[in-house]
């Protein structure tokens, strides 16, 4: 279990959150089928730093972005989805 830095609540246990996959915005709704397919099925799957979404469902009900190292589990900070990394 990780300690996840929620930009609104501070450091909290992972059990308060649910994982939401990589932090990559969806294509515009009118984008092509190809663009949508790529968005859903093409994965970088990095062995290293990964920007990802978590939902603080047993907390502030906010989505947040964290930067996590997929091998060491190190977390380099959390931010609100709209903020620059």
């Amino acid at each position, binding site marked *: 279990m990780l300690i996840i830095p929620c930009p609104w609540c501070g450091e909290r246990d992972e059990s308060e959150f649910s994982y939401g996959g990589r932090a990559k915005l969806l294509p515009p709704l009118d984008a092509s089928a190809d663009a*949508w397919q790529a968005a859903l099925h093409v994965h970088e799957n990095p062995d290293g730093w990964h920007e990802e979404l978590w939902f603080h469902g047993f907390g502030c009900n906010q*989505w947040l972005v964290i930067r996590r190292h997929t091998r060491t589990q190190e977390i380099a900070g959390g931010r609100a989805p709209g903020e620059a990394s």
Partner: protein
Amino acid sequence: MSGNRQIRRLAQGGMIDRAKPLSFSFNGAKLGGFHGDTLASALIANGIDVVARSFKLHRPRGVMTDGPEEPNAIVTVGTGAARTPNLKATEVPLTDGLVASSQNCWPSVDHDFGAVAGLMSPLLGAGFYYKTFMAPQGAWTFYEKMIRRAAGLGRATEGLDPETYEHRHAQCDVLIIGAGPAGLAAAQRLAGSGMRIMLCDERRQPGGALQTTSETIDGAPGSVWAHAAAESLGSSGDTTVLQHATAVWLADHGLVTIAQRLGAGIPVAQRLWFVRARHIIVATGAIERPLCFSGNDRPGVMLSSAAGAYRRRYGVAVGSRAVVHANNDSGYNCLVELGAAGIDVAAVVDLRPAARIGDGARERAGTIPIHADSRVARTSGRIRLQHVAVASHGEADPRCSFDADLLCVAGGWSPTVHLLAHRGTPAQFDPDAAAFLAQAKEDHLELAGSAAGITDLAACLESGFRAAENALAKLGLEATARAVEQSVVSDVLPPGNLDGPWCSAQGTKRRRKAFVDLQNDVTAADLESAIAEGYDAVEHLKRYTTNGMGTDQGKLSNVLAIGIVAEITGRPVAEIGHTTFRPPYTPVTFGALVGPRIGSNLLVTRRTAFHDLHLAAGAVMEPAGAWLYPKCYPRGGEDIDAAIQREVVSVRGAVGFVDMATLGKFELHGPDAGAFLDRVYGNRLSTLAVGRCRYAVMLREDGVVFDDGTVTRMAENIWHLTATTSHAGSVYRHLTRLLQVEWPDLDVHLIDVSEQWAGLAIAGPRARDVLAQIVSDVATGSDDLPFMGFREGKVGAHHARIYRISFSGELAYEVFVFANAAADLWQAVMEAGESFDICPYGYEALDVMRIEKGHIADGEIDGRSFPGDLGLGRMMKRDTPFLGSALLRHYGEQRKRQPVLVGLTALDGKSRIPGGAILIDRNADARKPIGHVTATIISPTLGKPIAMAMLDSGQTSQSLSAVSPAAGLKVDVTVTAMPFFDPAGERMRS
């Protein structure tokens, strides 16, 4: 007094409480011991030589160690439901009345039939089972039955575990693992720093190795100093000291799992701690290694450090006459303890050439002859050791033999690096220390004491201080290096020049009796043959021979095996490396892992606001996901089916009501809400008029149907949406994600009001009559509140939301009030409906009615259906893009196989269409599935079986059968138009 029979108990000494004699039994014999004993020390005191049989060859085994590294003395403790198998006698505190027995033997541990396996041992070498039992086909299944019968150590416990376990979560700034000299020194250095400190230790008393030596600190015996140190720390307020608490797992983000055994008289057997530490000091000490020679598994062979520890800790003499076998100076330390225990030492057999033996060691030996450059060639005795034969290194035959019932072995020390190795960085072999040393690569980890390979006491204290200062610095506190204040007197010999072969047995015959892993009966010969067969990667070797895979987790055998492999292959030890250290450090009781999660605490159970009313109404409650939900309300002896049928008939005939509280309910506020809804639902919603509801279908990004529900426009910019019970959580996450992450520019606020509102759906031809009686401030006429209309009003004094929505197909109203008014709503409905013989109905009746109406639910929305498959295709917007529209269109064109939702009736009009049945064309390929049944009932309304099914599009077969080969059922069916009942929907619009 049974204590009289403790023939190996010394008249004095030890940390036991002789004023508290205890009696216990072992294999039926009544024996005595003292408070402070372990089961192992008490067994030794009573002269018990054979405690257990080994796993594979059933060889007799005695106690080898005094700690968690024990490979031999594995026993079952307790009786009945409180019996525990596979405990190490060295870890079991002796208690009064304790009942222990040997396991893995028959008829008894002294005469074990399984020992015939020993005669076959050359055949049963490493990997033998990979090479045989293959013919004829299926042979393995036959042989396996026999092998399986011999498998396992102890017998599992039947019945419910009578003991209680608890979990405790804690946080601290610094966790120190190990209350030996280094750990205590670190704790003392940290005391008063303002940091929150935790200190844990696996033994019942602090001190670690200090308990087993004559070393003094500040003039006091080491164990006395340790006691005082731990006590003063424990009372300081900012330090928590946990004894009998083993740190077993170092996980990510400073999470340390500690298993604590609690003493007798405490109602909780074990407490499992999950500690979040900002900094961790690992001071876990070191474990002595045995030596590998022929006959090294005979009862009477013991680690040299353990032989001394048994005197110091328990006042026990582990033998009468000893030989010491060592490859380093620290093996000579036990001579003092053996002497003090009155044990004669016949000789020291040292693997090293004379020149490599330290002066201190020679001095310690005094008049005891040292046989340098020599090895123990074999051991003999009836069962326990009686003779030790000694040979020169180069020579095959023994040169001399000693009578001895104790052979102390000293093969050097392995720092306890397990916890740090859990972090994923392999330990590195240091040839000078002849040990694998851990790498503390992460910033929050610190290593101290003999766990770091340090061998003398003063340096251990010093390293504890440095570790503490490093921790302080990393935690942002200024920490100037302080000198250790304690004055230390130590006569403990460090290992000095450790040398000699990893395995001294020569020739295959001898090496077959030279054990590396005593629990799993892995010998040097096994390692040799595994290497000869190409299994020379260290992990292959482990897996092929099972070396280190026993319940002792290879604490004694792993490093020894690596050394022997190095010797056989001529490669350096460092190059061979070690196998991965797996958590936990020592086995953890599953009950402790379960902790409080038993019975009703196991899973979250959600009860609706109407729960007590359901029970009062006689409901049969059933779990549905996390919810407890009324299945039906049987009356006076009705069975379930009869109750469901009656409820349906009541609703269709007059009126009934059902709990709707589990629906997901969300409010949307804001000017962009309509636009948002058009994006997230497939059908158009922004055009909805105020006071109107609309059925709505939500898709995933890939165009598959995600959920359905209703959307209501309560005011110009206030909307209400529902989600199905099973998707309430995921729909909320989905919508919040879209609003917060994808489209933050939309001016919309989403509020989950699922818990706030409790509602009943009142359904049936008389529903309006009931509604009219319970609500005020609102007109209930069909024109005032039309089908799919929404109004607000009052139920009694309570604000109410009234949706004219129908899942059952009847005239129906969903009336919601604040959850705390649920009982009033229920009461009002019951009273108003009394004259219509109103009844509550359960979700089974609701399900029956929705199937009669052909409404989709979880069985159809299965995460694979596209809207078109479910007959919802025409609802989808064509002109405006929405979430899922791009791929919905694309896959609509690409997909080869497209199922469609259809209704089925049984051809004979009476056979129930089997649940989970597959549709086939009985006149064509009867094995080819062309669809499946998603929901099936015998309709009480229509008086015949009906079902919903997904059928491959384009199937026009007139010879459909629904088959259930698993149940041996086949029912011929025909496709029927849906809804089955009231296709024009007149009832719900009435």
